[in-house]
């Protein structure tokens, strides 16, 4: 298996000399192609900082991050924007769809900014919509859709460019449990059928139980890893809950 994401001892400090916060205190991990990895941790554990650093929205203080073999910590600002739109896909907690565009156009937008030939766009949008079960809502505007539909449109937008890595930040955070389940199943299908690689930050054990592997983060360090292996989802879920109670603190966060 090829390694898609390689984090080498990354550190991130905030603040000044007198008041230093170590958000990431030297984390190293690899993610392989086709993996569905979850990141869990209490509030303030550094999981969002980690995602921001990986997604090139924030920069690391020390260490290196390699995505598809390219070191993003060494890239300049212009290259980063280009890298972001070519190699990464984003799914946000609050969907971040453009309310002026229809679902179809929101998905197509990811391709048009890559200057994809228009003839190709139509075919690819329909194909992606089919996988995520949103063909019926393509002509609708975001305000006409449910939260789950919006998030699947966002997923389609993230996936359509065939990014090396999809980054999801609490994608089920704003969804009810039924919509969350549909979305998570869709993401799982993306991984199985299209070979997508997903890094998902969540504090919700139910969402996490759809992953192949969970990384637990505490105080900016990799605290524990849980691999699903051949467990079914229910068993994996129980194991996650166990780790969370070990971690203590925010266990009441768990659904």
């Amino acid at each position, binding site marked *: 298996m090829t390694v898609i994401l390689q984090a080498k001892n990354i550190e991130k400090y905030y603040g000044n000399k007198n008041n230093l916060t170590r958000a990431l205190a030297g984390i190293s991990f690899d993610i392989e192609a086709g993996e569905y990895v979850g990141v869990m941790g209490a509030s303030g554990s550094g999981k969002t900082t980690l995602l921001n650093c990986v997604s090139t929205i924030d920069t690391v203080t020390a260490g290196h991050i390699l995505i598809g073999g390219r070191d993003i910590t060494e890239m300049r600002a212009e290259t980063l*924007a280009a890298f972001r739109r070519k190699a990464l896909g984003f799914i946000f907690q609050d969907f971040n769809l453009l309310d002026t565009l229809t679902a179809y156009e929101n998905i197509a*937008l*990811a391709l048009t*900014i890559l200057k994809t030939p*228009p003839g190709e766009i139509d075919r690819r949008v329909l194909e992606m919509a089919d996988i995520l079960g949103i063909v019926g809502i393509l002509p609708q505007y975001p305000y006409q859709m449910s939260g789950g539909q919006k998030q699947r449109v966002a997923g389609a937008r993230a996936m359509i460019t065939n990014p090396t890595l999809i980054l999801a930040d609490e994608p089920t955070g704003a969804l009810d449990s039924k919509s969350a389940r549909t979305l998570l199943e869709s993401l799982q299908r993306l991984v199985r059928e299209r070979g997508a690689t997903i890094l998902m930050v969540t504090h919700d054990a139910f969402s996490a139980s759809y992953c192949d592997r969970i990384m637990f983060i505490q105080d900016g360090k990799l605290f524990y890893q849980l691999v699903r292996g051949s467990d079914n989802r229910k068993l994996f879920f129980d194991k996650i809950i166990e780790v969370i109670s070990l971690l203590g603190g925010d266990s009441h966060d768990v659904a």
Partner: protein
Amino acid sequence: MMSPSLALRNVKKSLRDYGVYFLTLTFGVCIFYIFNSLESQQIVMELTSRQAAALRTLDKMMGIFSVFISCILGFLIIYANRFLIRRRQKEFGIYMILGMGKWQISRILVLETVLVGAISLFTGLLLGVFLSQGMAMVTAKLMGAAIGRLRFVFSPAALRSTIFCFGLTFILVLIFNVGMIQRQKLIDLIYADRKNEGFKVPRLTLSVALFLLSLLCLGAAYAIMLLFGLPMANVILLAAVALGTVGTFLFFFSLSGFFLRLLRQNKGLYLKNLNMFVLRQINSKINTAYVSMTFVCLMLFLSICALSSGVGLAGALAGETRRNAPFDASLTVQAPPAGIDPARVALEKGVDLDAFAKEYLTLQYYDVGVKIPLNTGEHAVEAPIYFLKLSDYNALLSRQGLPPLVLGPEEYAISSNLPKEWPAAVRDYMAGDSGLTINGVQLRTSPARLEESPLVTSAYWAFELTGIARDQSLTAADLPVIKSALHINYPQAGEPYETLCLNALSSLELTAANGSRLNPSLETKARVLEGSNSTTTTVAYLAIYLGIIFLLASATVLSIAQLSETSDNIRRYGLLRQIGTDEKMINGALFAQILIYFGVPLFLALIHSLVGLKVGNDLIRLVGDKDIWSSGLFAAAVILLIYGGYFLATYWSSKNMLKKE
């Protein structure tokens, strides 16, 4: 006390947001002051009593119009202010959460308003005082007055009325702002940026039908204007204006829906870069923006017409000044057959020419007994042609600071400054010239030999041509002299010399060789210019004044609308950035969006103006032969400067707004 420092910090911090507000205020104050300071500008001019009276009338007219103008400016300032306040609602919400009372917030806002008002008032006045110095020169030129001693022009009256009008506006703004704060609910302030509009897209068939209807209305309005021309019956004019307005309104109303569908058919264009995003952006707002678009378009139309006609009138005036009054005074007398030298006669009679003449020049016109047929297609006449010696003509040119004319031995030139379509007729004749014979020598001419410099100061056009030939062609023959002229330039323009000259020469008795009394005609530059100029100047100034104000108004309305839209769109642009859109592409989309908003109303306004100016041109040509199209160029420059300035300011402010987040 913390409010003043907080207010000062707020103004500094939001200087960029305040940009358009400042611009509008400063421009407004500046223009207002300039046009109200007309009367005091006369200290640098040497005016006759009639000119002074005319200037007073002009000033009074400006005063009356300024009431109307200040209403427009007041509206603009309040409109611009509303945008600023809206943008800061969340900030006020935070003050309130921190426990600040409504009155305390109001006080901060009052201080800010006063601060911004004071700064822009000061800047505007400074600019106005500075620019009004140049304005005095222009006014003098248009009124045909001489410029006397250069002095600093300052008008306390204009200052007072400017401060009064804008002070009143600021008070209105204050009341509005305080009222807004008092009425607000905390919850609305906090969630001010979360309010989302729903979008409704009109049905395609409706859009197309309305679009066609709008074209029909506009076409009908154009047809009426072109067919009837000005002046036309009020009822017809009213119908044309109504049709034009409705057509414009429907055009913008239907445009977005229609245009979007059309473009969506073209996948290649629609699915390229951020085109889709830009079109949707515009579509989402044009549904609500068509009213302001219509307003802006009509304002621009008025502005273009007013500016072009105003400048055209002014240009026609200035042109005629040059054409009709090359000398301070001209005395002409028909004295065949031997001519007369009026200067010599005057000197013999004890007139002290040097008392009022810096220089004088006597010319003799020779009659060669030729008439020239001129045909304009409409009119055909036989114009007499009298000849001047080349040396005399060149002396005349050099007095006007013009280069001398060079003629070959078998050449002659024709001088004519007939108006309108006549020069073309003269050229036609010259092109087909078969030559004329003077003293047995055949002389030829060509259209290149048409001279258009004025020869005499006169209030009207004389229907005759002047030929110019080398001296020996004329003197060798014993040609009869038909006319003599004495041209005088004063040492300095102005009243004392004018009076001396009129007294000395109007009573000068001239007698012909046969003893009969002659009837000399005496014209002075001042008299020629006084005639119609003051009324026309008034109209021209009003037109320019209104034109600039309308332009300012439309640019401000557009700019504010765009800025507030950008501030609504910060989230959308942020999202584009998040998914990795190129910064260049984002700026391009922003540019395109603002360009379309500024460009579309301007485009339609330009088409309106083509028709409007075509009609107006015929009207202007009644006053002078100057074409309105060339002054349209000047109007275009003014529009480019102000409208373009606002466009760029809007783009930059918007870009900064997006960058800040």
